[in-house]
């Protein structure tokens, strides 16, 4: 039986050929990937082995479009997470301390006493979340649209 590691612990050409086969078992594939993850020499040999004729012809379409969509989504999520906490804390503080402070405090305390605390916080959160989300959507769309124009 042919070996996929040589006597020095490096991958053989047989290992690269095994990867092209459909019925290569999970353990073998995992061991080969593990070796390629740290061995620069074998990585270079594997990359050189993958000539044009060995690449899959009909790959699924839309890889690059999906990549940019995901990058855009993650940028939005990152910005939202960063600023929403601060914004919500500020919004709640303003609700309590803005205007007629004492009455507001009494009103708010009464609300907390009689009503569901979670419901009040959730309502305030959702209002602020929508405002921030709309603004971020506009900002990120502007950035990507300007890039297209260039």
């Amino acid at each position: 039986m042919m070996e996929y590691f040589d006597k020095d612990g490096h991958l053989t050409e047989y290992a690269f050929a095994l990867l092209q086969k459909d019925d290569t078992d999970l353990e073998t594939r995992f061991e080969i990937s593990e070796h390629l993850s740290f061995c620069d020499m074998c990585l270079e040999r594997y990359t050189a082995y993958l000539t044009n004729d060995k690449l899959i012809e009909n790959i699924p379409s839309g890889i690059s479009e999906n990549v940019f969509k995901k990058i855009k989504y993650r940028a939005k999520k990152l910005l939202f997470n960063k600023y929403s906490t601060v914004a919500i804390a500020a919004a709640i503080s303003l609700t309590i301390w803005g205007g007629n402070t004492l009455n507001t405090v009494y009103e708010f305390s009464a609300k907390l006493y009689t009503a569901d605390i979670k419901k009040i916080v959730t309502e305030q959160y959702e209002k602020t979340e929508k405002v921030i989300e709309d603004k971020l959507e506009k900002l990120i769309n502007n950035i990507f649209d300007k890039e297209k124009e260039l």
Partner: protein
Amino acid sequence: MDNNKFNLIMKKYERLIFTVCFNFVKNYDDAMNLSQETFISAYYNIEKCDENHYKEWLTRIAINKSKDFLKSAYIKKVSVVGEDTFSEFITEKYIPEKEYIMTENVNKLKEKILNLKEPYKFVSRMYFLEEKSISEISEALNRPKKTVQTQIQRARSKLKNELLEEELK
């Protein structure tokens, strides 16, 4: 790097990256997801790479993504055993009965270790027989410590299964 330039890089290497991912995971949808994850990681780090080495760099990212994916599948399939795997072969229960049975088991174990194939051969010999540390093995074989640790665990598991199979015969 602007998005247009990165888009050109993706178009140039998407067949390669998809092929690499598919060769490891053998599933179109998983390979598609891993290819996208590869390019997303590349997007955030592309300035760190010399453009003459994009092919190898992208391939390495794709392999790492595929490896992590396979690892979770592999762990579910194979049970990993603890530190005292071999204690049942070299335990006190054998000593009162016949000392040579214990010696036999130790010799059997040594033979199995010496006959292991790569990628477990060298790590097993150095760890079990030469009693070298993970750091020493990692340095000698130029493999990451984490890799050495997991290879030792898998070698242990293989040896235990082989010895158990023989005991049952």
